């Protein structure tokens, strides 16, 4: 035995002896311990998605307690989310779904594989993976890039190659079901029990009806409901009491009844008075709603052509049924996108601000709670646990 090898062996013996002694002393800590989260999250928890714009293959979704007062207490765990991923979750199955993209040669490409990665709530461990057509929309995070059926069984994934289609995934059977062409139309808004509609470039809605297995059975298209060039609806809506509310670039709201299997258009209304039309919705996700028929719109005072992504300094609160403004919340920091979670006295508003930090407010009054300590490059989507 060489001297160096002998020295290593002796060192190992010393270490083993030390460990044995420590155990004997009863002070040794257990090794290999992995933390667990509750299978059902508190209503106010949030999943903050860092799309990692500058390192797109390294995106992540952090599970956060937004009311904890320190960064270590806020940060509960993390899911990886590759290449501008989309996200959904099932309350009934207590699972997360990350719809993501991998390439065989990583940062330089190679064969592309798109998957739905399934994580359990408690362990944040991969439970399964469903390969889907390598066509999913790759772009800025939009909440309607994917959708879940009312029973949480079917996942719909918008594809853009640039041909447009929607992949249907059976989350219970853990299988890809079918791909539905949606020519001229994009995104998915689940409606009724087994249908979804897409937003079309001519301002209409194209509805696809599925059977109980997720196979397409029929489709229909509405008349033109909005002008996609002059005053388009954002790729985001808030739903409350069976109605989806789509804000438009110029500041109107297009209500669409989504309770049935076919969409029913309501009468559009303005967020602003005629004298305040320079105030417009703006941001990546400029609207959220609650179950009580209240809508929250991120607004900017200097709206004009090309400012629809600028975010804004205020959130306007509306009674969605009466179309009446209830309050104007002045944000502590200018916001770029909205998220929400919780209920009752723990109903929270999350605002990703222009410094790429997430501010938390308590609703409905808009009381500022804190800026989260979570470090993220580009946290451009916030998903509520509730």
């Amino acid at each position: 035995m060489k001297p160096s090898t002998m020295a290593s062996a002796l060192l190992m013996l010393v270490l083993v002896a030390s460990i044995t002694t420590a155990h004997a002393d009863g002070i040794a800590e257990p090794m290999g311990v992995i933390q667990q989260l509750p299978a059902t999250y508190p209503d106010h928890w949030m999943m903050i998605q860092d799309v990692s714009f500058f390192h797109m293959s390294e995106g992540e979704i952090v599970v956060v307690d937004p009311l904890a007062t320190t960064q270590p207490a806020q940060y509960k765990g993390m899911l990886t989310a590759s290449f501008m991923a989309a996200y959904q979750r099932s309350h009934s199955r207590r699972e997360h779904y990350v719809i993501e993209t991998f390439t065989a040669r990583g940062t330089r490409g190679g064969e592309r594989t798109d998957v739905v990665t399934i994580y359990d709530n408690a362990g944040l461990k991969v439970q399964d993976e469903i390969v889907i057509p390598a066509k999913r929309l790759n772009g800025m995070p939009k909440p309607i890039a994917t959708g879940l059926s009312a029973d949480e069984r079917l996942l719909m994934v918008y594809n853009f190659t640039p041909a447009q289609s929607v992949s249907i995934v059976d989350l219970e059977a853990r299988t890809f079901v079918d791909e539905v062409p949606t020519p001229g139309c994009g995104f998915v808004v689940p409606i009724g029990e087994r249908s979804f509609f897409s937003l079309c470039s001519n301002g209409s809605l194209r509805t696809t009806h599925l059977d109980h297995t997720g196979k397409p059975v029929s489709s229909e298209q509405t008349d033109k409901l909005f002008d996609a060039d002059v005053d388009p609806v954002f790729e985001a809506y808030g739903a409350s009491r069976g109605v989806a509310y789509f804000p438009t670039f110029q500041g109107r709201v297009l209500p669409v009844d989504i309770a049935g299997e076919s969409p029913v258009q309501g009468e559009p209304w303005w967020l602003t008075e005629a004298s305040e039309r320079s105030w417009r919705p703006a941001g990546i996700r400029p609207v959220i709603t609650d179950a009580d028929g209240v809508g929250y719109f991120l607004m900017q005072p200097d709206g004009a052509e090309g400012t629809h992504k600028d975010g804004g300094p205020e959130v306007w609160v509306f009674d969605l049924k009466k179309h009446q403004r209830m309050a104007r919340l002045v944000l502590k920091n200018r916001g770029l996108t909205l998220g929400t979670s919780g209920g009752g006295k723990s109903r929270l508003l999350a605002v990703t601000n222009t410094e790429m930090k997430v501010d938390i407010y308590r609703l409905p009054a808009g009381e500022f709670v804190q800026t989260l300590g979570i470090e993220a490059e580009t946290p451009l989507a916030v998903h509520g646990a509730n």
Partner: protein
Amino acid sequence: MNSDRHSHTGGVVDRLTERFSRSVASRTSRRGLLGWLGGAVAGGALFPLLPVARATDPSQATGSIADGGDSTSCDYWRYCAIDGFLCSCCGGTVNSCPPGTEQSPVTWIGSCLNPEDGKKYIISYNDCCGKSGCGSCLCNRNEGDRPMYLPSKSNDLNWCLGTSSAIYNCSTAIITGLALPES
């Protein structure tokens, strides 16, 4: 985030400090790209048909035009509807890709006013693909930008689609011709 590294917004844009969100968007809003093959769409009166075909047809070269300005600045006139890392800062130029990348054959287009001659030009924002994001000179301007369900006018999409690699590196801004006058 280091805005000096990630955002190159000089001149006019920088003076609009009130609109910091633009620079934010500049640093954060996706990158952009473009629209759909041949994406001329009703309502876009300034957009000619089949912009991609025009972009790839040498006979459509615009020849010499007055083209002043700093192509590494987000304020440069051609970038009126861009969203991405400027190839001029990434080893390429305003109309060429960095070494070792591959240019996307499909793009979206903008219609930008050239302050030198007061004319509007059709700009094709072809992406360069096959290497990870350049990370320098991220620029986001949204004149004429529309949602992704109107892809011919949306800069929120990754258009490394017709390429062998889906990985986005940077964006060019190539003049394809004069815009048609608005009717």
